[in-house]
């Protein structure tokens, strides 16, 4: 499919509409829309954008969208993508703002919310499985995965500190390779 600005906006608007239960499902949604259906980018690129999107400040779903949008149509594409991803959130809050408190007290709304929480879990699991294939490619990357996972899940280490850790490991790895080869 052609990557017009309108198509980019429309695609991200759709993803933004389905972005339930926090921004984390952005990854499986983009996999489905951009890789499987439209073939605009590949798994490797999305995995890279997702990792980078977590490494910069701001809202991850927005960051990933901007990376993808830029890749598709440079700055204009980035703007189209971020407007698309944010607009459903914007509209729904503006429409619901006045009745928010009443809504969350409705029992059936809470039940739906509970169910969607489980759906989000399976999507996160599937996403981890997919990016595992692209990111954990050898022993060293496997170590990085488990260190970040355990520090984050068990010790609640702030994500930013783990990202900085990963960046240092990357720099250190390259640096030590250079030393081994006797370069300076």
């Amino acid at each position: 499919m052609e990557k017009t600005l309108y198509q980019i906006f429309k695609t991200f608007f759709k993803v933004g509409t389905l972005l339930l239960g926090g921004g984390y499902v952005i990854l499986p949604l983009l996999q489905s829309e951009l890789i499987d259906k439209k073939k605009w980018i590949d798994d490797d690129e999305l995995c890279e954008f997702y990792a980078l999107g977590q490494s910069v400040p701001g809202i991850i779903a927005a960051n990933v969208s901007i990376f993808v949008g830029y890749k598709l149509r440079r700055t204009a594409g980035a703007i189209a993508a971020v407007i698309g991803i944010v607009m459903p959130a914007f509209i729904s809050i503006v429409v619901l703002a006045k009745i928010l408190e009443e809504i969350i007290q409705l029992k059936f709304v809470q039940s739906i919310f509970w169910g969607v929480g489980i759906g989000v879990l399976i999507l996160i699991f599937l996403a981890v499985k997919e990016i595992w294939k692209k990111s954990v490619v050898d022993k060293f990357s496997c170590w990085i995965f488990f260190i970040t996972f355990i520090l984050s899940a068990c010790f609640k280490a702030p994500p930013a500190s783990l990202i900085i850790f990963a960046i240092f490991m990357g720099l250190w790895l390259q640096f030590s390779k250079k030393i081994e080869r006797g370069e300076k």
Partner: protein
Amino acid sequence: MIYIKLFLEFFHIGLFSFGGGYATLPFLYHIADVQKWYTAKQLSDMIAVSSITPGPVGVNVATFAGFTTSGILGALVATTSVILPSLIIVIIISKLLEQFKHNKYVQSVIYTLKPAGCGLLAAVGVDMFVNNINLFGMILLAGLFIASLTEKRDPLFYLAVSAIVGLVAGFFNLTA
């Protein structure tokens, strides 16, 4: 001037919250304390509502705070401000990446960032699992898992099925 204040506060969040999602929460609670645009109670309601409305929680709260303080224009200002730092920073990084894509250090950092990103997402999943799951939830999760093994499905499939099952389960008090 309320618009400038909204801009400054939410631009600040966009610029300094690392790790997304719930990393924005301390900032948002701080705003509740200092600016009185919303109360802490309203914020926790907002966070609950964010789970059922589309979009990242940071965007939802920005829109909500802007809207309650100064209507649609305020909502627009706050939402744009929270996104603007991302837009600027990510475009700059994208431009740099194009230039330095073949640099060994850049490649090495991307190589280590990917498993770290994967590890962080896995940790989010575990955290959500531990905090939200009950026996019936496990059964639903197992069902969805089996469905995922047979063929590759649209994410919408999982969200729709789990929403419907949740709705029905609610009638039988299985969600508590």
